[in-house]
């Protein structure tokens, strides 16, 4: 990765980087689940966010790096204050800058394997934005509110 001229991104609350291999997915999910819980997110919402992030990482592994296990994937996870506490998750790769119009959900009426990832991500996250990265590769920025608008504010700590 000889790209020293690129401005490094400022650190997020939590940065994670790993190889483009499905074996790491469970570690990422468990980390994110615990992170969201500590940030006060409702466990059901947190489970959905973990699914969306899992799908987005799978897409980088399969489409971005085309199955090459040696690509690098980065996650930047932060808590923002934007109309209430918001979780922001960026997923960054150094694969190709794909035509943004090709990243889209298909017609779900047709029952066939696959073609669900982008739909799931868009269904769960409140903001979803794909863009090209300086230096090559893609950035997927996703956001989701952290606050549970349920009136029983006390979240049960769970093991």
């Amino acid at each position, binding site marked *: 990765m000889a790209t020293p001229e690129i401005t490094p991104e400022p650190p997020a609350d939590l940065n994670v980087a790993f190889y483009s291999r*499905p*074996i790491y*997915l*469970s570690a990422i999910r468990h980390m994110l689940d615990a992170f969201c819980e500590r940030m006060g997110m409702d466990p059901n919402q947190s489970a959905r966010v973990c699914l969306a992030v899992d799908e987005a990482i799978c897409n980088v592994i399969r489409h971005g790096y085309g199955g090459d296990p040696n690509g690098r994937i980065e996650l930047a996870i932060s808590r923002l204050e934007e109309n209430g506490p918001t979780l922001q998750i960026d997923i960054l790769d150094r694969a190709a800058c794909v035509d943004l119009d090709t990243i889209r959900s298909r017609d779900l009426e047709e029952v066939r394997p696959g073609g669900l990832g982008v739909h*799931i991500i868009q269904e769960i996250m409140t903001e979803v934005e794909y863009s090209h990265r300086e230096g090559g590769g893609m950035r997927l920025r996703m956001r989701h509110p952290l606050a549970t608008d349920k009136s029983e504010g006390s979240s049960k700590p769970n093991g």
Partner: protein
Amino acid sequence: MDEQAPMTMAVDRQDNLLIVRPEGDIDLASSPGLRAQLRELIASASGRIVVDLEGVPYMDSSGVATLVELLQSCRRDQLELVLCRLSERVLSVFQIARLDGVFTISESLESATDTNT
């Protein structure tokens, strides 16, 4: 390092009934192993196939795709496919994918295996 995670699956063969019980998360690491095992199993099956998901705390769309593939194979081979005991979390993936009406989904193992219904 292995790039795939093994999928443990208990198999119960009865007359015209095959019950499979995958154990563990079904994600992109484990679904290829699940797919391979299911393919082999249904080649010799007849009647009904029940996929008992009680031991599956988590499923992503690669798991859903594996089950859609199984559903298509079953239809082709005139086998009946029933999914049962989905956790709320797993069921919600089928709902988001608008597939909860496409599969026969049963709450209990009893009703899933009851061939009189």
